[in-house]
C-alpha cells in the first residue's frame, strides 16, 4: 500500500524526523488558509501515487496565500499519469544548501533490508546509481540484526556526506530504519533530505509503501488507504476481496493462479485480442468466489466476452462449474463465455456444463483462439 507524501510525513514526524511545516488541503480556500498561517514562500504539492509530479506541473512554489489558492485550484483535479489529484500538500518552502537521499527498502536478491544513502539527493535514485554509482553507499541488514547510528554515520560518510551533518543524519537513518521495521514497510525514503543554511536537516519529500501482508499487525492502516488513484473497478474488487487489475481491453479474464492468468492474458494478446483485466480467484476457489468474480467482470461495460481458465490443483473443477452456472442464473449473463477446466474433478466439472451455452476449450491456447474469435467476430 503506497502512502501519500503527507501521510508519510505524518508517520516520519512520529519517529522524530523533521519535515517542513504544513498541512493537506482539498480545496483552494483551504490552501489559502494554510498558506496564510505559514510565513514566506510556500510550496503546493499534488498528492498522487506516482513519481515525476514536478515535471508534470503538480508542484508550485508561491509567494502569497492568493498565489497558493490559484496554484491549488490549478493542481486539484489535474490528471497526472492517469491519476486525478484530490489533495494538495501546502507547506513551508525550504531553501537547501545541499540535498541528500536516505532510503530503506527490501532487497529481493540479497533477501534482506537494504539501507541506501546518497550525497546526490533530489533526483531519481536509479538514475544516480546508473550515472554516478560512487555517490551511493549501501549496507544490508535484517529486522532482527537491526541498524545502529554508528553504522548510519559510517554509511553517510562513505556516500560522501559532509562530516558536519553525519550526527544528525545518523539519527535520522536510525529513525527511518525503526519506522521501516515497526510499521512493516516495503519502502521508506527521504528524497531529498535538505540541509538548510542554519545547519538543520529536513525531510522535504517522503515516500512510504507498507506491506499489505502485514496489515493484521496494524489495524489502523485501513484508514490510511486512499483510493483516488485506483480505477473504480479496482476499488470494487478490493471491497470484494478479489485480486483484480484493470487492463483496458474487451475480453474479461478469470483464472486461478497469478502465473496462469498472466500467461492467459499473454496468449490472448498473441492471438490479436486485448484482455480487459487480470483476475486471479486463487487456490481453493469455491463457487461463491467464482460468482463474485463474474459479477465484478460484468461491471466492466467494455467486456464483450469472458474467458475462464481454471487448472485444478487445490481448486476443484466441479465447484468452479457450479459457481459459473449459479452466476449465469443470478446475473442473467448474456455474454459469450469460453471455459477451460482441467484438473481435479474435471469430468464432473465438464458434465455440469454440458447442455449450457458455455463453450468449452481443451487447452489455454485453444481457449485464447476461441475467445478472440468470438470477441472480434462481428460483435
Amino acid at each position: 500500500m503506497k502512502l501519500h507524501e503527507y501521510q508519510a510525513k505524518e508517520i516520519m514526524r512520529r519517529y522524530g524526523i523533521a519535515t517542513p511545516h504544513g498541512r493537506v488541503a482539498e480545496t483552494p480556500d483551504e490552501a489559502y488558509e494554510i498558506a496564510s498561517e505559514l510565513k514566506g514562500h510556500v510550496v503546493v504539492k499534488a498528492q498522487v501515487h506516482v513519481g515525476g509530479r514536478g515535471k508534470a506541473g503538480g508542484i508550485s512554489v508561491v509567494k502569497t496565500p492568493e498565489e497558493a489558492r490559484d496554484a491549488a485550484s490549478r493542481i486539484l483535479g489535474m490528471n497526472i499519469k492517469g491519476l486525478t489529484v484530490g489533495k494538495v500538500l501546502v507547506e513551508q518552502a525550504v531553501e537547501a544548501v545541499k540535498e541528500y537521499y536516505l532510503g530503506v527498502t527490501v532487497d529481493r536478491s540479497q533477501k534482506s533490508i537494504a539501507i541506501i544513502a546518497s550525497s546526490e539527493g533530489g533526483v531519481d535514485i536509479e538514475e544516480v546509481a546508473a550515472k554516478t554509482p560512487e555517490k551511493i553507499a549501501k549496507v544490508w541488514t535484517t529486522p532482527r540484526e537491526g541498524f545502529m547510528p554508528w553504522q548510519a554515520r559510517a554509511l553517510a560518510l562513505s556516500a560522501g556526506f559532509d562530516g558536519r551533518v553525519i550526527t544528525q543524519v545518523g539519527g535520522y537513518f536510525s529513525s527511518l530504519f525503526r519506522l521501516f521495521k515497526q510499521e512493516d514497510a516495503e519502502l521508506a525514503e527521504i528524497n531529498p533530505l535538505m540541509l538548510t543554511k542554519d545547519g538543520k536537516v529536513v525531510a522535504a519529500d517522503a515516500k512510504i509503501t507498507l506491506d499489505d501482508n502485514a496489515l493484521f499487525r496494524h489495524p489502523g492502516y485501513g484508514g490510511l488507504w486512499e483510493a483516488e488513484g485506483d480505477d473504480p473497478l479496482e476499488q470494487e474488487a478490493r471491497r470484494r476481496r478479489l485480486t483484480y487489475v484493470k487492463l483496458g481491453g474487451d475480453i474479461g479474464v478469470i483464472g486461478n493462479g497469478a502465473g496462469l492468468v498472466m500467461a492467459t492474458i499473454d496468449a490472448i494478446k498473441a492471438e490479436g485480442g486485448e484482455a480487459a483485466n487480470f483476475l486471479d480467484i486463487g487456490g481453493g476457489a469455491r463457487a461463491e468466489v467464482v460468482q463474485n468474480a463474474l459479477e465484478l467482470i460484468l461491471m466492466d461495460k467494455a467486456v464483450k466476452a469472458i474467458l475462464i481458465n481454471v487448472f485444478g490443483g487445490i481448486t476443484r473443477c466441479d465447484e468452479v462449474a457450479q459457481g459459473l452456472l449459479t452466476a449465469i442464473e443470478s446475473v442473467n449473463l448474456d455474454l459469450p463465455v469460453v471455459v477451460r477446466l482441467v484438473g481435479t474433478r474435471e469430468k464432473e466439472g465438464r458434465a455440469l456444463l454440458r447442455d449450457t451455452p458455455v463453450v468449452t476449450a481443451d487447452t489455454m491456447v485453444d481457449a485464447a483462439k476461441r475467445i478472440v474469435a468470438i470477441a472480434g467476430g462481428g460483435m
Partner: protein
Amino acid sequence: MGIFVDKHTRLVVQGITGREGRFHALRMRDYNPDVVVAGVTPGRGGQDVEGIPVFDTVAEAVEQRGANTSCVFVPSRAAEDAVVEAFASGIELVVCITEGIPTLDVIDMLDQAKKEGSRCRVIGPNCPGIITCGEASVGIMPGQIFQRGPIGVISRSGTLTYEVVSLLSSRGIGQSTCIGIGGDPIIGTTFVDSLEAFEEDDDTHAIVLIGEIGGRDEEEAAAFIGSMTKPVVAFVSGRTAPPGKRMGHAGAIVSGSMGTAESKVKAFQEAGVPVADTVNEVVDIISELL
C-alpha cells in the same frame, strides 16, 4: 533421485489439523504412503489424522517418527515461528505453502534458517511445493498429472506449472522433479539454487524454467545457465502486464525499469537459452532437444 525430495523423504505436516493441511496431507500420503510420517498442531498432540500421528512439537515428530522434511500449512501470522521451529528441531528442508507472510518475517525466517546450517533449505513461501515423480510429493501439486522422466521443471507459479507439466505428460515427456519456488518477492530457494541441483542430478537431462515479471531471479538464472552442461528452455509470463501493478503474486510487479518481461527474455536470449512464446512451444522445444 531427482532434487530436494525423494523416496527417503520423511515428512511432517505442520498445521495438519487445518482444512488445507488435512486435505493435502492425505493426498501426499496417497502419492507415497512411506513419505508422510507425522503431523504437528500445538495442543493436538496424541490425536491422529486418519492414522497420521499428530504431535505438539516438531522435535517430537523428528525423535519419534524420524521426520527430516516439513511442509508448512500454518496461517501467515504463525508461519515464521513454524519454519524456525522446524529447523531448530533438526529438519533440513521446509516447504512453506503459506501465502501472505509479511516480508520482514520472511527475511528473518530465511536468515535464521541460514544460521542453523548450510544444509538447511526453505522452498517458498507462497509456493505449490515440490514433487519428485514416483517418489514423493510435498505440497499441493496434483500428483496425477505428473509422469516420471528426464525433465526438471522450476517455476514461480503453481497452476502455470501444472499447465506445462500436463502438456509434457500428454506428449509422453516425463519429469524428474518439479519445483514451485513461490511467488513472493523473497523466497528461500531461487532459480539458480534449483538449476545447480538439477545440474548435479543424474535423472535430469533438460530443464524447463517458468519465470514471470518482477525481481531479478530470471536474469541471475540466465547468467548461471552459461556454466551448465544441461539445456534449459525458458518461458516468461506477464509480457503484457502494465508497470507498477502487482499481478496477483506479491513478487510479480514491474517497478521502474526493474523486473520487466523484456529484460528477462533478453537475458535468456543473450545466454543462448531458447524462450518459448507459448506453453505449447515449451513442449515443442523440449521434444526437439531430447
